């Protein structure tokens, strides 16, 4: 029963969501299932918070090697949530500029998050230098396309190809690459993904794919 009940529930919900698209009276059931989804999604946030606290408190309690990191996580969590919940004017005002929550968001979370993303620029530069080689025809084509886009989509494009007639400048070439070869490739990928998702969904609904229940 531990396996059969989830399988039957999945099949009923999955089929209802598909069929309701074609049979409008079944929208009532679809809405009901969506309501359940909202409730589960909201509880998932609480579950995530509890899990975060439990895992990191456990590290500290058992004095594991990474206990200091666990302490930082819990401190960071409390440093944001306590001012947000209790000292930022409640639900009415906590999103507004000037509250302690907003101050912490701007001065702590904001720069830390932006810094993590900004590091990509350095790694991309280093990786391009070491890995971007014209080893064969395919990689040479990739290299040429990358050059056209990297130079064609920045200010230098007009400086180095401004002497060419309108429509033939580096920027125009970059636009052409984006509009045609790139879009054609994207479409092929999207169709492939869509077919893959449809077949995976069908396998889940029919109970052939059971990995989401754990095991197998």
């Amino acid at each position: 029963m531990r396996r059969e009940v989830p399988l039957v529930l999945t099949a009923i919900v999955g089929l209802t969501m598909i069929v309701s698209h074609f049979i409008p009276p079944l929208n009532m059931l679809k809405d009901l299932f969506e309501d359940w989804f909202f409730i589960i999604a909201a509880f998932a946030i609480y579950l995530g918070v509890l899990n975060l606290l439990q895992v990191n408190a456990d590290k500290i309690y058992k004095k594991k090697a990474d206990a200091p990191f666990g302490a930082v996580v819990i401190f960071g969590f409390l440093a944001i949530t306590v001012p947000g919940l209790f000292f930022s004017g409640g639900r009415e005002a906590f999103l507004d500029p000037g509250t302690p929550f907003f101050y912490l968001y701007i001065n702590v979370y904001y720069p830390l998050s932006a810094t993590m993303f900004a590091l990509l620029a350095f790694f991309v530069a280093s990786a391009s230098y070491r890995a971007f080689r014209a080893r064969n025809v395919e990689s040479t084509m990739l290299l040429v396309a990358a050059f056209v886009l990297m130079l064609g989509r920045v200010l230098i494009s007009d400086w180095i190809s401004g002497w060419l007639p309108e429509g033939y400048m580096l920027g125009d070439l970059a636009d052409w690459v984006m509009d045609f070869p790139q879009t054609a490739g994207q479409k092929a990928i999207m169709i492939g993904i869509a077919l893959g998702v449809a077949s995976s969904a069908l396998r889940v609904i029919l109970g052939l794919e059971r990995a989401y229940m754990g095991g197998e």
Partner: protein
Amino acid sequence: MNEEKKPAQKSFWDKLVSVDRRIIFLLIAVAVGVPLFFDVSPSMRVTPVVRGVYDSIESLPAGSKVLVSFDYDPGSMPELQPMAEAFFRHSLGRDLKLIIMGLWPQGPLQANLALEEVFRDDNIRTKNLQYGIDYVNLGFTAGNEVVIDRMGHSFEESYPQDGRGTPISEIPLMKGVRNYDNVDLIFNLSAGYPGTQEWVQYAVDVFHVKLVAGNTAVQAPAMYPYIQTGQLSGILGGMKGGAEYETAIGKSGVAVRYMFSQTMAHIIICVFIIMGNLAYFSLKKKRSKLEAKG
């Protein structure tokens, strides 16, 4: 007999191939950082995809309602925040009414930051815009694409209250706004999932609402097929898209200024790629010569 072994002399190309990555990091830091100190506002050519966003907003009469979804966090702020500010300048300047929301928890805060910046502009400040009448921030709701789908039937079912806890039935701007039929345009700023792709699949395809978007440079190429099919009326792709949009609205902002940094960084990367390839081919030639000699 006791000859000391001299270490093999590394050639110039060998040294180039094994250049310390910290040198690359330093050069990128200089290329990105130094241009920020220069106030460069070059003219940008506005591409058709960006023109699509601009025209979609220009075509709306004053008082039209635009749903704006902020689906990103501070990690993507350098690319998307300038777009948000330019969009607010453009739409509020044209007296459009804005219904702001977020499928990412940090989205509504990013919206407030952009509004705070835009309200400093004289021409926006003098309009005396009022919360609840000219714009409203519905906040964040968990549920990803299901939120988009449900809003097609009823905004109130996904957002019974705004971000401040006021029931949306009590907000003047939300009077008569039941679902997508009652908004004239959706503008989505997205850095991933859930984002523009979900808005296309669940709002445009099902409810036939008009959508324009601003995306990170990494994500934008995946949205081009939707432009060709007309599912997306225009897109701002990365910093360049933001800079073009600022040019289109006639108010250069940070995106135009940041383009100088991005240009320098791209030049450095291109130079490094060329050097790397020169070294690769020189060493390859050297190796094949040695092999030929046996």
